[in-house]
Each structure stands twice: as C-alpha cells, then as structure tokens.
C-alpha cells in the first residue's frame, strides 16, 4: 500500500521526474529547487544544478532559502561571477532546462512576477523578473511549477515578465527565439504539456484522486484535457522519503538546529 502524500508533495515529485541525469538545469527558487534536488537525490544523481548566484553543479544537503545561500557555494563544482553566469552559461546556450515558478501564468506559458494591475500604478508590486526573462528565452526548454489558484492561473497575464508562447502558435519563433520555451507545467493537481500546434497547455495526467472539475475550478482559463488523459504515477516510497528528509533537514537547518 502506498503512503499518503499531499498535493504539494505530488507536485514536487512529478516535477522531479521530468529531469534527466544529463540535464543542465537552471533552478528557480521555491518549488523548482525542491523538485531539482529530489531528482538529484533519486534517479538523476549526475544532474547539474545551476543557480543564478553563480553556483554551477551544486549539490546542497538542504534546500536554500534564497538563490545565494552559502550551502550552494560550498557544494558547487565551481562558483562564478553573476555576469559570467548570465553571459557564458545562460546566454551561451549551455543550459538544457530552465525551471521556473510563477505568480501569474496563462495557458500559453507566459509568466508574470512583475505587477498585478497596471505597470505604472500597480495594485500589487511583485518582486520582478530577476533572471526569468532570459532564462525563458535562453534555456533549451522551460519547465514551470506552481500551485493552482484562480488568481494565479489566468486567461491573460497582467505583464509579460517572461515570454512563453505569446498568443500561441508560432509566436515564439516569429520573435526570433530559437529555444523551445515552456514544454511542461506541473501543478499540485496535474501534469500539463503544450499542444504541439496551438501551444496551449493541455492536461496530460491528473494526480491521484484529482478530478477534471477540481482542475477547472482552480484555473482561470477553460481547461483542455488530453484524449488519453492518464493518472500521474503515485510517489514511490523512496521519492517521498527523499523529499521529506530533504524538507526536514532544511527545516532543522533554517531554524538553527543541527540537521
């Protein structure tokens, strides 16, 4: 019998499975960081994790609170300057997967982490793009992970912090962007992939126990489900233990206790 697990754990573990041993992965903070490190600690021990602080090939024992924690540097193959990171490693085309979170996301994988409302007189001023605009255009492909909410998954983003597939179709290529863009969205309820032609995200699999209604109820656009809709494989005992141990070590370290 499988252990019970939370939607958040399912999201992180499903995301981790998308990463391979040979991937060079540019890691955003939060959920992407957990997924990338679970992958490293399970099926992809040789994956290269890069954080925008300049740490290349890092293998943290605990999850960093920020993208510049000391743990990332201590365990990295090397740590380079931030200009070098963005010029040689990201812009240089050396990164296979960029893993991003989102405050607002639309069905074409466009991400907003800049403002809610008008840019010049925003309702809510969010932190901004950081590395995301060029992560989105320079990495071979983009994986996105976020929890579903009506506020987060919207028909149209208030601001194009980073470009996904624009208004769909060939928008991306038309702008002269040669990378694939968003190829995967993993939420706490489902796994989505873009339609090959329209580029709209289509639900490929529902996490165990999730219904189509639940997905639609927490998504601001009309959801498309794949004809061969499947159920996401449940987390294995190893995956769950790995994630929970990682979170426990992280909790202990960040509250000042020995891990």
């Amino acid at each position, binding site marked *: 019998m499988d252990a019970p697990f939370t939607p958040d754990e399912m999201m992180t573990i499903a995301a981790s499975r998308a990463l391979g041993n040979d991937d060079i992965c540019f890691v955003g*903070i939060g959920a992407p960081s957990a997924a990338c490190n679970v992958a490293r600690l399970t099926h992809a021990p040789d994956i290269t994790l890069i954080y*925008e*602080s*300049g*740490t290349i090939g890092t293998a943290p024992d605990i999850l*960093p*609170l*920020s*993208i*510049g*924690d*000391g743990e*990332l*540097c201590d365990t990295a193959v090397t*740590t*380079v*300057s*931030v*200009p070098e*990171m*963005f*010029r040689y490693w*990201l*812009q240089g085309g050396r990164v296979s997967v960029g893993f991003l979170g989102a405050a607002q996301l639309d069905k074409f994988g466009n991400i907003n982490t*800049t403002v809610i409302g008008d*840019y*010049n007189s*925003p*309702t*809510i*001023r*969010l*932190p*901004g*793009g*950081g*590395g*995301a*605009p*060029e992560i*989105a*255009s*320079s990495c071979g492909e983009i994986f996105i992970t976020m929890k579903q909410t009506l506020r987060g998954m919207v028909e149209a983003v208030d*601001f*194009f*912090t*980073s*470009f996904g597939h*624009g208004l769909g179709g060939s*928008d*991306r290529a038309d*702008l*002269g*962007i040669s990378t694939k863009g968003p190829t995967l969205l993993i939420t706490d309820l489902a796994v989505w992939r873009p339609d090959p032609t329209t580029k709209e995200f289509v639900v490929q699999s529902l996490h165990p126990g999730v219904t189509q209604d639940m997905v639609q109820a927490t998504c601001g656009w009309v959801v498309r489900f794949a004809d061969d809709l499947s159920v996401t494989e449940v987390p294995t005992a190893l995956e769950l233990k790995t994630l929970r141990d990682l979170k426990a070590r992280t909790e202990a370290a*960040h509250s*000042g206790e020995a891990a």
Partner: protein
Amino acid sequence: MAKFQSLKDAVAENLNDGDIVAFEGFTHLIPHAAAHEAIRQDRKNLTLVRMTPDVVYDQMIGMGMVDKIIFSYAGNPGVGLLRRMRDAIENNWPKALEIEEHSHAAMANAYEAGAAGLPCAVFRGYKGAGLKDVNDNIREITCPFTGEKLAAVPSVRPDVTFIHAQKANKRGDILIEGIIGVQKEAVLAAKRAVVTVEEVVDDFEDVHVNACILPRWAVSSVCVVEGGAHPSYAHGYYVRDNAAYVEWDKIASDRTLFREWMQINVLDVDENIFVARINTLKGAA
C-alpha cells in the same frame, strides 16, 4: 588608493546627496553596516542601484532617502515582498519612488559594461518581455555582421559603490570569496568605492592565484566592520540570519513599527553593534 578609515568617515567623504549609489551583494556579503551608516548620515535624493534590492534598500526607501531605484529583482529572499518599497510605489509613502526596472541579465551586463568603461552593454535578451515596453533604457542594436537585433542597456556607472568583503590585507587589497556576485564589477564601474571587511590580515600569500582580489588602488576606503553583512552572511565567517529576514517582513508591514525599529536598531546605534549580531551565527559558516 585605499585608505583605512572609520565607516563614519568613509560614508561622509564618499556619499553625497543626489548620488547614484550601489550597495551591492548577491544574497551573500550585503553591506548592511554601510547602508545603516548612510541612513544615520541622512543622505537625500539618492538613486539606488542593485540587482537584488532587499532589506537595506527597503529601509532606505522607507526612510525617504531615495528618489529612484534601478533594479532587477526586489524581494525579501525566501520570504516575500519588500513592503516599504511596495508602499512607496503603490502609495507614494513616504514619497514617490521612480523605478527603472531590468532583468538580471541586463543588470549584470550593465555592471560589466560599466567596469569595462563602455557606454552600454550589448546582449541577447528581453525577447518577448514586457519590460522593454515600459523602460526607454532598453533599446536595440544591430550586429554589423549577421544583422541580428540584440538588446542594449546603458552601462551602470555609480558615483560610489559600497560592498562588504571578507578580508583586506595591510596594503588595502581586498579579497572576496564564495558567491562573488557582481561586486568586482560594481566597484570597477564606480567613481569611488568603499569596502567594509571582516578583518585585516598581514598578506594574501596563501590565497589562490586566481582569487577575486581588488587591488588597493581600485578602492577608495577600507573600513573594518566585523559582522558588517548581517543579516546577510560572510562565507567562512558566519551564516545567514534567516530569522532576521523573516522578522523584517513583520517590521516592514507597519509604518509605525518600521520607524520605531529603525530608531532603535539603526539611528540610535553605530556599526559596532554588528559584531554582537553575528555571535550565534559563527561556527556553522
């Protein structure tokens, strides 16, 4: 040529009202003590530059010292938003704040171009991104060989840059190790540079030949401030005070609470307070 002096004197001599100033640090080595001294000296009408403005810029904005900010990510790392900066942008409190917003790639390139003495940085970026529609300092430049359209932004050239580093040697050369961020570029791009350090050592004989070292003639002032990065951290000295970052979210959420905290923890003290703040954070580093 670096002179060793007190932080008070270094700020007084190098930071003027109306300056373009960078207090740089990428999570690591953020020059909190220097920023607090600038707050105590009540500098006005500053243009702040930083890739990742966090708590110190939130404090300076909340204190009404800032006219404009040039940045690429304004958050409290691992915690959330910057509430004083939001209050300025959304409600003009305590005054309006002009923003010039970029991506990290653009800012990193702009510092690099500044260090390289160039008027602008050229890179491949902002494709499809909304910022180029709201920021007139994001333009295009065409490769004269391939015809490719590339992005251009003005280089960053601060009047003065403040950084925190691990060590100076007795001559005034500066050693930075670990996550080095854009600090070398921020110093070299600036007209003047003030460096706070954890300690002064005799020499750098045992340091790696390719380590990140700023020669003494590339900096203006060196000030010893042990713990001067707190609640940020100094690789090899003390770890990040995550609790302080979480606490800041509460302090900054209320204007009165913010002002009280600033009075007690910044205005009424001096940089000598920092050494005590890192007491429990050593050892783990």
